[in-house]
């Protein structure tokens, strides 16, 4: 009787062992074969926090701070850690509405329950402080420090450019960027992106279920430190830039000033411009759209992208080419009878004494003189055909940096346009064009398209009497990185240096000569300014006012080009603006005698007059 059922011990033991075997198999599966849970564990307890490096700072040539970083906070949310919270309070603290909360939490959930998603971008320090005090009421939320670009001087928007978060396209193309990183999108920010961006770091924290940080993962073994971006010192003179921007208010056009002895860009203005602080942070896209739709195209950087006809300033080039080609000397005289008349073609000229020699032709800016010069260049008997002589001419022209990239470090510069002979072949048919057909090139009209930067570079070449350094905007990079060596190379034109002095003398007369000088308004008593006016015919409206100059005549410190759209004669707006810029740069002030001129410019409104 006692052991009647003792065999049942096997059944009972069997059940126990069977269940244990099932458990062992299950454990083997959970712990060894299935990786799903290992991944979940990482999301669960580790929070990788990206540490965005501060972008490099940007200074002007005198160490005036142009760009710095302001701290802001991104509010992040981890959906699976959310608990019931007071939406009214959250909406109030963050200054958002309830729909925003609902929408963004849903969005975050769609992305991932375990990974942090961006909930609200770029909260100011002040709002963040208020939120931080209440953070414990909002489990599942946390703040991540970010920075925003700030522009204390509010100038040079086109030069500096702007940054934005990387988009999908960049993420796919460049693996070194992660979602949420900033990237330079234009200007210096873009051109020097690799210098400015620094290196993103990351920290892995252990967090508990309440989202509280409980320490570093593996004592920070897998953390990487964020390395701040390198700082840039620009060649820009902030004071001159600000002054120029003020002069350019209510005018459309551009000013570019270069230090001839180095190619350093002192000022680069495109007008109308905008406060760079507008394209920062949350307000960026809204303001960007506004600027994009503005009919005056403030986002368009005229200084490097506008292809303007150079007008009479181009006569200097033709004079130099003429001399180089031995079809013109200092003492060549041409007559002018209110213009150039040849074979049914007339190029008008204003009334002045006649005949003129080369220097006088520059001083007075005689159209007729340069039509003759240009015709003698193109009809030069040394070249069998017009095409050949035209190509020779074009070669000289491009050696001044026209019709090709200057290769400056200004992002997105344009080539401008100097037509090739094939262009005319196509336009007029081969051998059906001659010097007379393209005579407008003599006076810088016609198809020529020159950017203000190229014009300033031309002024720089005149100042240097025959060579230039590539205009550039960055002077120094922190951390022992040197700027590109190409900015230290002298680029010579194809014109012998000896011919420049005549032209420069002519340029001196333009301002400092007697009656008939076209730009006496630009005269500064203490400084010998050399310049050349230009007035470009504009089929769409009033002529453009142009002036290029450098000063002082000997050992020049500044070369400048000013282009005022619809400003009329070169001497009306461009010349006074250039002379004010030169005076400001060289003497640090505007003399009392010329205050009236400054006021005239400041009050000049060429936009609403249109």
């Amino acid at each position, binding site marked *: 009787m*006692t052991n*009647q*059922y*003792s065999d*049942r*011990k096997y*059944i*009972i*033991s069997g*059940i*126990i*062992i069977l*269940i*244990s075997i*099932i*458990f*062992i198999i*299950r*454990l*083997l599966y*959970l*712990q*060894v074969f*299935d990786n*799903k*849970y*290992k991944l*979940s*564990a*990482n999301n*669960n*307890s*580790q929070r990788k926090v990206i540490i965005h490096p501060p972008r490099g700072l940007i200074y002007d040539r005198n160490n005036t701070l142009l760009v710095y970083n302001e701290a802001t906070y991104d509010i992040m949310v981890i959906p*699976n850690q959310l608990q019931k919270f007071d939406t009214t309070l959250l909406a109030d603290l963050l200054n958002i509405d309830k729909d925003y909360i609902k929408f963004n939490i849903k969005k975050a959930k769609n992305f991932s329950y375990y990974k942090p998603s961006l909930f609200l971008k770029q909260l100011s320090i002040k709002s963040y402080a208020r939120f931080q005090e209440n953070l414990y009421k909002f489990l599942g939320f946390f703040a991540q420090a970010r920075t925003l670009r700030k522009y204390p001087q509010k100038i040079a928007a086109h030069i500096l450019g702007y940054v934005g978060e990387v988009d999908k396209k960049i993420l796919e193309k460049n693996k070194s960027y992660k979602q949420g990183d900033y990237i330079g999108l234009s200007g210096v920010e873009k051109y020097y992106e690799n210098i400015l961006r620094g290196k993103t770091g990351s920290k892995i924290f*252990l*967090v*508990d*279920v*309440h989202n509280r940080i*409980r*320490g570093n*993962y593996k004592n920070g073994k897998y953390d990487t430190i964020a390395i701040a971006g390198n700082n840039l010192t620009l060649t820009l003179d902030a004071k001159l830039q600000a002054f120029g921007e003020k002069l350019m208010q209510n005018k459309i056009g551009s000013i570019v000033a270069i230090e001839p002895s180095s190619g350093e860009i002192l000022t680069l203005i495109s007008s109308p411009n905008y406060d760079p602080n507008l394209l920062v942070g949350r307000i960026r896209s809204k303001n960007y759209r506004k600027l994009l739709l503005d009919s005056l195209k403030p986002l368009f950087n005229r200084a490097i992208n506008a292809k303007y006809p150079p007008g009479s300033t181009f006569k200097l080039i033709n004079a130099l080419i003429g001399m180089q080609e031995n079809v013109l000397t200092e003492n060549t005289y041409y007559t002018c009878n209110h213009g150039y008349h040849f074979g049914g073609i007339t190029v008008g000229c204003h009334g002045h004494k006649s005949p003129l020699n080369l220097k006088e032709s520059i001083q007075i800016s005689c159209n007729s003189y340069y039509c003759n010069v240009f015709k003698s260049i193109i009809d030069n008997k040394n070249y069998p055909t017009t095409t050949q002589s035209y190509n020779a001419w074009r070669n000289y022209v491009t050696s001044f940096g026209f019709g090709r990239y200057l290769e400056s470090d200004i992002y997105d510069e344009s080539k401008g346009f100097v037509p090739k002979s094939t262009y005319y072949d196509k336009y007029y048919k081969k051998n059906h064009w001659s010097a007379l057909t393209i005579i407008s090139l003599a006076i810088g009209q016609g198809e020529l398209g020159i950017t203000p930067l190229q014009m300033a570079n031309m002024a720089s070449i005149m100042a240097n009497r025959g060579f230039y350094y590539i205009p550039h905007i960055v002077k120094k990079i922190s951390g022992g990185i040197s700027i590109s060596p190409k900015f230290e190379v002298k680029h010579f034109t194809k014109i012998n240096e000896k011919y420049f002095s005549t032209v420069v003398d002519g340029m001196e007369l333009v301002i400092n000569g007697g009656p008939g000088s076209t730009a006496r308004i630009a005269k500064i008593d203490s400084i010998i300014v050399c310049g050349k006016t230009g007035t470009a015919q504009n089929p769409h409206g009033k002529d453009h006012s142009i002036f290029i100059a450098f000063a002082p005549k000997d050992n020049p410190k500044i070369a400048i080009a000013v282009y005022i759209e619809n400003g009329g004669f070169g001497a009306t707006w461009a010349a006074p603006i250039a002379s004010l810029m030169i005076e400001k740069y060289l003497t640090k002030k505007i003399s009392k005698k010329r205050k009236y001129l400054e006021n005239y410019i400041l009050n000049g409104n060429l936009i609403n007059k249109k």
Partner: protein
Amino acid sequence: MRQTKNNILQKIDWITVLLYLTLVIIGWINIYAAVYNTSHKSILDFSQKYGKQLIWIFAGIILIIIIFTIKSRFYKFFAYPIYIVTILLLFFVLLFGREVNGARSWFEIGNFRLQPAEFAKFATSLAVAKYVGSFNFNIKKIKNLLATLMLIFIPVIFILLQNDTGSALVYFIFILVLFREGLSANILIFGFIAVILFILALILKIITVLILILAIAFIIYWLSQRKLKNIIIASSIFTAISLILWIIKHYGNINLSDSYVILISFIISSVYYIFYAFKNNISKIYSFVLITLASLIFVFSVNYAFNNILEQHQRDRINNLLGIKYDPLGTGYNVNQSKIAIGSGGFSGKGFLQGTQTKFNFVPEQSTDFIFCTIGEEWGFIGTSVVLILFVLLVIRLIFLAEKQRTHFARIYGYSVAAILFFHFAINIGMTIGLAPVIGIPLPFISYGGSSLWSFTILLFIFIKLDTNRSDLI
């Protein structure tokens, strides 16, 4: 045959004691790891759980010494009084107890808390052992069986009233003890199947349960028939029919759930099975098909009733009854977290104190009910399988020893100990790996808590004491 008293040390079953000590030490190490915190490093920090557990362990050793000094005869003689005192304690705790986590099951005296339900296990075991082991007892007599069940259900009712469902469910395991003592195997099998199916129907997806039933049915059929050809034909027919039905459903855009497809397929297949049974005159198949069909329909009805007839609050109550704990973050959060913790341990674990899941409160009750997560996370598969094997060894050893007892009382008590320990570790570990419902019962010897450690220690060591007098007829 009489041995001298100072030989008691020789008579103690040291294998069991060693298994016990190993589990207790493993438990303490993992409690230390579960609540480890750099600001409380000292193992003697009695403000921390591991410090307190150390006290419980030493107090447990004193209990063991006391148990050994008491004569074996005493336990049998005082089995009923101990039982009655325990029932009274269970009654008083309802009146004067303190509520912790929604269960009014604690006596609180100063800083000291005691949970009578834990002690009711050994008291009930003693009483059952005494009654079932008595000379006149015959389990086939309904009267005797009912009396036994009453002994078991009185504490269950009190514990349920305390709202401590987990501890109450433990008493169902006495069915194993009664089975050993002659309870009809059919009751065990049917009861077991019904309970399993009921629980599975509620915690698993219906389709999973259906497939499980069918798989088991085919396997059992194959085991009983030993004809591979038949079983392949039978299962192929079923598979083919379900496939056809599924394709019709899928391309015919018929709104029918996959579980119905399986049910209908089996009904259609049954026609063939019965025809086959009729033709070959195998009567076994009839009952077999019938049982399988009944199981399928049972699962369907449970599922349907639960989801369609019951109201939400009733469902919650059943979940509650099953010990499926209220889940603040959605279904299965705790189990999921627990699986993540265990799974993240990998083969060899993250190392002592290196666990992140358990330490940072992802897993609830990490030092008590979910202590197995810490073991899994920090010691990996090696750790979990070692602990599991230790438990199996302990329980099998207890069964082995129980079978060697000369008295019914000692044998039944031994089986009770083995069964209770088995239920605890199976449900506790099963719950952490998602194979059992979340029932808040501790892992014996390992989970943090004085009451639980002491009650298991008393439970086990009374048997070890009884075993030292194995050769005596008491």
